[in-house]
């Protein structure tokens, strides 16, 4: 049966601005299905982003939406969450937003293990500004600032956030919307900082420069780069070169969540004060 997205969408803003075949819409829909599955009240959700094509998502969502400055979504989100620990705070961002200019807030949100879910739409390019390379552009791919091919090594975002302290980490390509939804749902329900990397597509800025302008072709290319966790376990490092592992990559429910720990400080301080 068809799924009703309208509950969480500002329907008057659709059709959205994203280019034909752009992967962001698929991610947005996965997020909405996860909200629906969890039966979250839209009044209780703050949906926050930075700047970029991906970051235009909050504008289409019918909840408390905040479209901040480039790279800073997690900082704003931290303020919201700390002010209202009982509410849901969800952040979306592009690869550039989340890991280039926003890299510091990413690792510190992970370190704090604050109960925010971050969904990264990783299209491996700066879509909005015209196809400059990002920290996740694969080696040798062409970008408007990498006319000779990408020379910088790229991040494995999952490894990065695990190293920083995130307690739930998953990755999936947009060709598997159902799995994406599942991981996002798990991440949302997880108490602590969770990161879901949606490996995504930008046919216009990434595809066109790399003979992958056709959204379908690009999606196939992307899908083939992903290797499910179980399969990857049996592969040699060379085989995994230029590919990424998908699935639920890390989970730790033992580490305390930041706002809960802070609440203990408040409780203790107030008790002491009132004595």
């Amino acid at each position, binding site marked *: 049966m068809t799924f009703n997205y309208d509950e969480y969408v500002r329907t008057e803003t659709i059709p959205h601005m994203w*280019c034909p075949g752009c992967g962001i819409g698929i991610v947005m829909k996965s997020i909405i299905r996860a909200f629906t599955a969890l039966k979250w009240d839209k009044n209780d959700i703050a949906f926050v982003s930075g700047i970029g094509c991906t970051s235009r998502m909050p504008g289409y969502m019918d909840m408390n939406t905040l479209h901040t400055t480039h790279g800073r979504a997690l900082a704003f989100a931290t303020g919201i969450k700390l002010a209202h620990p009982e509410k849901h705070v969800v952040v979306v961002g592009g690869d550039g937003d989340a890991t280039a200019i926003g890299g510091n807030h990413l690792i510190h949100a992970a370190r704090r293990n604050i109960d925010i879910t971050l969904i990264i739409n990783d299209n491996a390019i700066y879509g909005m*500004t015209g196809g400059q390379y990002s920290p996740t552009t694969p080696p040798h791919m062409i970008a408007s600032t990498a006319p000779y091919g990408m020379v910088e090594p790229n991040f494995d975002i999952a490894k990065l956030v695990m190293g920083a302290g995130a307690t739930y980490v998953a990755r999936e390509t947009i060709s598997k919307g159902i799995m994406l939804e599942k991981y996002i749902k798990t991440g949302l329900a997880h108490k602590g900082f969770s990161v879901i990397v949606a490996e995504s597509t930008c046919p216009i800025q990434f595809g066109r420069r790399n003979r992958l302008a056709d959204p379908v072709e690009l999606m196939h290319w992307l899908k083939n780069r992903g290797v499910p966790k179980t399969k990857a376990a049996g592969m040699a490092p060379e085989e995994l070169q230029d590919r990424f592992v998908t699935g639920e990559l890390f989970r730790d429910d033992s580490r305390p969540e930041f706002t809960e720990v802070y609440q203990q400080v408040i409780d203790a301080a107030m008790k002491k004060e009132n004595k």
Partner: protein
Amino acid sequence: MSNRVELRFSGVGGQGAILAGAILAEAAVYFDGKYALQSPTYTAQVRGGATKVDVIISSDPIIFPQTSEINFYLAFAQRAYDRFYGGNNPGNRFFRDMTEDAIVLVDSDLVTNFNDPPHRVIKLPILQLALKELGRTVFSNVLALGIVTGITKVVSDEAIVNAVKRRAPRGTEEMNLKALNIGFNFAKKYMEQKSIDPVTV
């Protein structure tokens, strides 16, 4: 028409309106030795939506660099027309740009809705014409260039021919020049008619 001529070409992604603008400006600068500028919309500005390019050509140095009295407007798509003709939308940033007697050329299959009809509009099924005569719609922008330059004479025929050649991908020169010629011919016929009625064709 004064010495300074302002033109706007608009369309949706892939129709080649912006390229046509660049070629026209190049014809003026490289082959006619005129002053010219062109300012296109760019990806960060439009996303899979309508695009436009403004071209200004003059025999004197160009002082004010934006269009404010467009003499010729070409639209390849309804969405483009709505956004960049904009005569009926006061909030539109491109409002106030058209002269009263501007010539408007539209693809008559694709632009059908004129809320606030311009005075002089030429309706021609440009894409279909290109398809019919040249077998592919990709040449429709050059065909249109032929019409534009044929009517306005804003650049010399020689200049536009050279400019089109300069840009034509290897192996497509001939087809492109053919497209240009179809445009020229249409323009000639049109100018001979001398009547500039709302619906000319």
